[in-house]
């Protein structure tokens, strides 16, 4: 291992790595935002939807959860182009990750809502709350306590899954690293460095998740 040569190359490539990092962050951020918005809808549909709607949403989540993310990304990239929706690799990749994220968030929301004892809903009915009121004052706040920590975990999953976009040619951190390696042949050093950067980001998110979990738990 040649440390000085690596540091030289690292300094020369700092802009490229920073751009890659920025790309990784924007992919993850967009995927999480869109995925969460979709996922809350999916979760509500799974819990409160009428029969046919619930079946459709269930089929959607089961299909997405049974397919590897890489297949979703490749399919979104190639298939959307074939049916005339011309998306670049970035948009297609973000879309695939958002869809993947939505099925996970959907299951989290459903799990949280269903774990609230039925007695709570009945009590709310008994004191005359309408359904939107029940949701806003009784179910929502309790579900949120369970959703938040799991949701932060999903965010870390998204950062990790964003590496797969390198396969369809989005210049995020991993692809930038691969470009650097093909130029400098320092594969050990640069893969290690990329792994380290991802670790730092995800470890930060994980610690934040622990913090959120502590904050949202019911004080004893």
């Amino acid at each position, binding site marked *: 291992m040649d440390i000085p040569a690596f540091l030289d190359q690292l300094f020369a490539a700092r802009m490229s790595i920073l751009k890659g990092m920025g790309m990784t962050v924007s992919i993850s951020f967009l995927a999480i935002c869109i995925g969460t918005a979709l996922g809350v809808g999916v979760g509500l549909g799974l819990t409160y939807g009428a029969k046919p709607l619930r079946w459709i949403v269930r089929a959607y989540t089961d299909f997405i959860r049974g397919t590897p993310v890489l*297949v979703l990304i490749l*399919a979104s990239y*190639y298939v959307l182009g*074939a049916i005339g929706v011309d998306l670049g690799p970035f948009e297609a990749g973000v879309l695939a990750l958002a869809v993947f994220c939505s099925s996970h968030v959907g299951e989290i929301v459903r799990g949280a809502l269903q774990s609230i004892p039925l007695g709570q809903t009945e009590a709310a009915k008994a004191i005359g709350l309408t359904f939107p009121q029940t949701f806003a004052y009784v179910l929502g706040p309790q579900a949120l306590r369970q959703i938040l920590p799991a949701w932060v975990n999903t965010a870390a999953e998204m950062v990790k899954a964003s*590496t797969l976009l390198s396969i369809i040619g989005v210049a995020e951190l*991993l692809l930038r690293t691969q470009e650097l390696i093909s130029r400098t042949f320092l594969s*050990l050093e640069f893969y290690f460095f990329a792994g380290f950067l991802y670790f730092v980001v995800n470890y930060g998110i994980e610690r934040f998740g622990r913090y959120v979990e502590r904050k949202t738990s019911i004080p004893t």
Partner: protein
Amino acid sequence: MGYTLNFSAVWRSFDLLLEGLALSLALACAAILIGCAIGLVTAFCLMSKSGAYRRPARAYVTIIRNTPILVLILFTYFALPQLGLTLSKIESFVLTLAIYSGAYLAEVFRAGLLSVPIGLREAGLAIGLREMQIRSAIILPLMVRNVLPSLGSTFISLFKDTSLAAAIAIPELTFEARKINVETFRVIETWIVASLLYVATCSVLAALVRVAERRLSIPR
């Protein structure tokens, strides 16, 4: 739209997809067998009173869980040869997947071990069993029943992760699908068939796990 679905090109190469699927399953099986061994040892280390065992085990779990699997795969395959460890594609992929799953299984097994009541261990000590006998005859059989659902879902997600082997050109299902896609341009058909194969395999695996759970459950 001007696109007519025509599955004949995909059916002609269906054998390739099935071979790919078989390889995916084989990779996942090999990885989880080694991963279970790693996970079990790590779980015992995580629960050890001595920091000399606990700290390295905790570091291993934290590092692996916070690093994207694609980075790990590329690192093992492209960077380790620099350190003099040259593995074939399949060896390096199975090794990576095993180390990766080991970190997740360690947490699964730890939860399983914690769920075995302490009284059983004490009872074992009382009738004069040695530490290893208590582990193999009392704790492990009970733990296996407890962890079966999580073990099953880890295996299913591991099976989906085998799609990443396409990144280092191992001819598993995703790789074959991509090849058919590029050779025939039957984009939509290829990805529909490939993702349905994944979804179908995942549901069969989930059903098998449920059967195993029923078979192994303690009769009441």
